[in-house]
């Protein structure tokens, strides 16, 4: 959403100027909304947020890691490329990369391990030209497990880094 802000602002400005020059009643915010709607009317419902479009190459935003591993799997390189491509052509779009661990080990050390996972994703995106100002790598460690099950499948689910697009 943020990357459309300049557009909204300029539309708003035009409306303000138009309102002023006509010396008529004040600007109706509804007009701005209507203008915005018509501008995107031809696009699909995910136009503002293609990362939520199941058909988009950046719909998948989770990277899974092996036990005790902090390297992005080579099978995920294509996915990294897609996200890098999108971010490079949308320079105002920001992301947070959130690293996670399974529940083996102590909380602060796991927080640092989770950060190694988000950092691994960040570094690959950086190598593909994504600006540092667009990315922040953080960690939840073992504090926010996606799976609460204690079996290996649950743990594997939690050894993960997620890209979160900031709206």
């Amino acid at each position, binding site marked *: 959403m943020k990357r459309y802000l300049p557009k909204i602002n300029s539309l708003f400005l035009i409306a303000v100027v138009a309102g002023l020059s006509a010396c008529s009643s004040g600007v109706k915010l509804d007009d701005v909304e209507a203008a915005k709607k018509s501008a995107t009317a031809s696009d699909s419902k995910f136009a503002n947020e293609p990362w939520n479009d199941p058909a988009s190459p950046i719909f998948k935003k989770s990277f899974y890691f092996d036990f005790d591993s902090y390297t992005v799997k080579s099978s995920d390189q294509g996915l990294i490329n897609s996200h890098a491509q999108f971010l490079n052509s949308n320079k105002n779009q920001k992301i*947070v990369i*959130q690293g996670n661990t399974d529940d083996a*080990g*102590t*909380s*602060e*050390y796991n*927080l*640092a*391990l989770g*950060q*190694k996972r988000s*950092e691994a994703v*960040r*570094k690959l995106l950086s190598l593909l030209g994504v600006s540092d100002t667009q990315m*922040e*790598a*953080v*960690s*939840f460690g073992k*504090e*926010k497990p996606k799976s609460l099950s204690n079996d290996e499948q649950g743990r594997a689910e939690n050894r993960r880094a997620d890209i979160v697009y900031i709206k």
Partner: protein
Amino acid sequence: MKIILRFVISILTFLAINTVAIAQMQIEITGVGQSQYPIAVTRFLNESSLPTFVTDVVRADLANNGNFVNLERGETEVAENAKPDFSMWSARRAQALAIGTVTALPGGLYEVKYRLYDVAKNQSLGGTSVTVDRNNFRKAGHAIADDIVQRLTGERGIFSTRLSYVVKNAGRFQLMISDSDGQNPREALSSTEPIISPSWSPDGKRVAYVSFESKKPVIYIHELATGKRIVLSNEKGNNSAPSWSPDGSKLAVSLSRDNNTQVYVINADGSGLKRISRSMAIDTEPQFSADGKSIYFTSDRGGSPQIYRMSVDGESAGPASRVSFKHAYATSPRLSPDGKYLAYIARAGGFRLQLMDLRTGEVMALTQTNYDETPTFAANGKFLLYATRVNGRQVLAAVSTDGQVKQILSIPGSVVREPAWGPFMN
């Protein structure tokens, strides 16, 4: 009459609901000292009308200490100035006797006065008097129990110190401040996001912690009396593992602003951030030594996590030295207040609490549980509190540094984690 009765009942119902809403910590004593000192604590005079019985607090504290056994559980009140029947207490094998009186003072205050006797010598060992309002009878009880421990063992008691811990229940995280026995809990912060790593300022007035409320780990300092807080560090990436310098002027923290997690020192007002560790690996969980000159920390620079020590001026002032060698995985260093012992968590079968004598390097396992975490020393260095799992429940546990006295502190139906034991209050 009926209306009045209904009114009374509705008030009682209201009180009952309020009591239930505050989850009570349960203490289960699972280990006691090898020899227990027999003492008799009689019911204090004039406390039957009070909301909290001071005597019960004193008795519970001495039981929690693990090195005392109270021989008097009766309700017979004995005044502080009464002449004790030494031959009777001697026949009951009591070595010490504590008797006391509660006196109402003007202005809603109460004086709680007690005296301690050596039964064998028929001699007073002194006593103390504490003045409190109606809400602080527990405080009076803790002060008297501390006085008893001090007079009988020469060691400063820890009953008047406080705990902080995090309670997780139904997707809500609460940072709680309680008495040393987990009772009398007050909520300092409530959040739908995790809260970890609370750390008490040396003066006991503030707690630093890591809150994920802005969807990333950020360090706050929270003033307990006012509830006011400041952001200590919100650098890009993770901000975590705060720990105070002994003089309270600085904190050591872990930040990932330079991409890998490294140790920094920062002034308590958030100014003067300075990186002190210099590795390509994880350096985290910094802890100041008792003299404030060194920082102990966890690092996996050697491949697996181990405890290291460096100068507070950083690795540029001299290389860090490795401290832990016994286990393949060692994290969460905590220094005893006198600086002589290092507690940490090692993978030894499960993740278990260890205690190292820093003089000899000898290491002793203090537990047999498998998920120990976040150890924290009592202010007198005689006890460690930590988080663990018992029968699948996430609880706090306390163990004496000789491994003998053991307790489990739990809240039924809730997860309790991230304990931090507060300092002595002067």
